[in-house]
């Protein structure tokens, strides 16, 4: 699915603005819990809200997180049984909806089915990744040879890390750089 023109650049600008707000450098890792606190979003664990929820047990894959706004207050409830990296991604996905100004929609349709907007979901997925690894961070990972440590530094899954390195262009830039370096060394040798 294609994004509207300029969306990817806008996503990176949002991720940089969030870091700037929190006095972080453009390539710094972020703590989604701290981002929620900074923007006065209450972060709740599902095990606190619904201790008996089946989403905490056998069906835990079926629920990641939800944002609930009420007047001046906003809360994100997230599934605290997920892997810590996935929890970070889930929270960033919800933050992405907030930062993109996505309009709220009723959670269920009249027939009881879930309401989902594929376009908004795709945008939130993309921004969640950028919030975790900005283009600047992706470039730094490649430039500094941090690929093997990056999962730990940025708290992301391997698929997320690989995705961000690819779509940010960092991998291509690095390959070109290495190619030029290789050619230069060939010329000079």
């Amino acid at each position, binding site marked *: 699915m294609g994004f509207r023109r300029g969306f990817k650049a806008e996503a990176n600008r*949002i991720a940089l*603005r*969030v870091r700037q*707000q929190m006095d972080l450098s453009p390539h710094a890792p972020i703590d989604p819990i701290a981002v929620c606190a*900074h*923007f*006065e*979003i*209450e972060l*709740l664990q*599902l095990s606190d*809200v*619904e201790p008996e*929820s*089946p*989403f905490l047990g056998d*069906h835990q*894959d*079926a*629920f*990641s*997180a*939800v*944002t*609930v*706004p*009420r*007047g*001046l*207050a*906003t*809360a994100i*409830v997230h599934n605290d049984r997920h892997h810590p990296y996935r929890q970070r991604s*889930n929270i960033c*996905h*919800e933050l992405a*909806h*907030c*930062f*993109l*100004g*996505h*309009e*709220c*929609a*009723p*959670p*269920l349709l009249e027939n*009881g*089915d*879930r*309401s*989902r907007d594929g376009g908004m*979901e795709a945008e*939130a997925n993309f921004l969640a990744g950028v919030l975790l690894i900005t283009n600047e961070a992706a470039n730094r990972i490649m430039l500094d040879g941090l690929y093997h440590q990056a999962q730990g530094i940025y708290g992301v899954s391997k698929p997320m890390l690989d995705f961000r390195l690819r779509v940010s262009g960092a991998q291509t830039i690095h390959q070109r750089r290495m190619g030029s370096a290789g050619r230069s060394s060939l010329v000079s040798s």
Partner: protein
Amino acid sequence: MTDRFDNEAFFAALNAARLSRQKTWKEVAAEAGINASTLTRMGQGAKPDVNGLAALLAWSRLKAEMFIKGAEAIESEPIARITALLRADPKLTSDKAKLMEDIVVSTYNRLKDS
């Protein structure tokens, strides 16, 4: 006289506007030119005065008529028109969606009480 201004809908829209600009409430107050304490009181249910309302409408670029009951279809009880951004994996069934709605309602009521 019936209170026709939907405070909660206005604040929810204001909250969405400030998050979409990556702003804290303190920054909203400073940029709109009102006291932060005014926002806090408004968040606790106090009606904004006309100058505060005008300042916040100007800052957010929201339209007052969007929040006048009767002018728009904002008639139902808040809990009945819970608006939530609901996120989860696409494999969720209707039964699980209902369970998720319970989470939304619990959280909504929790925010109401806090």
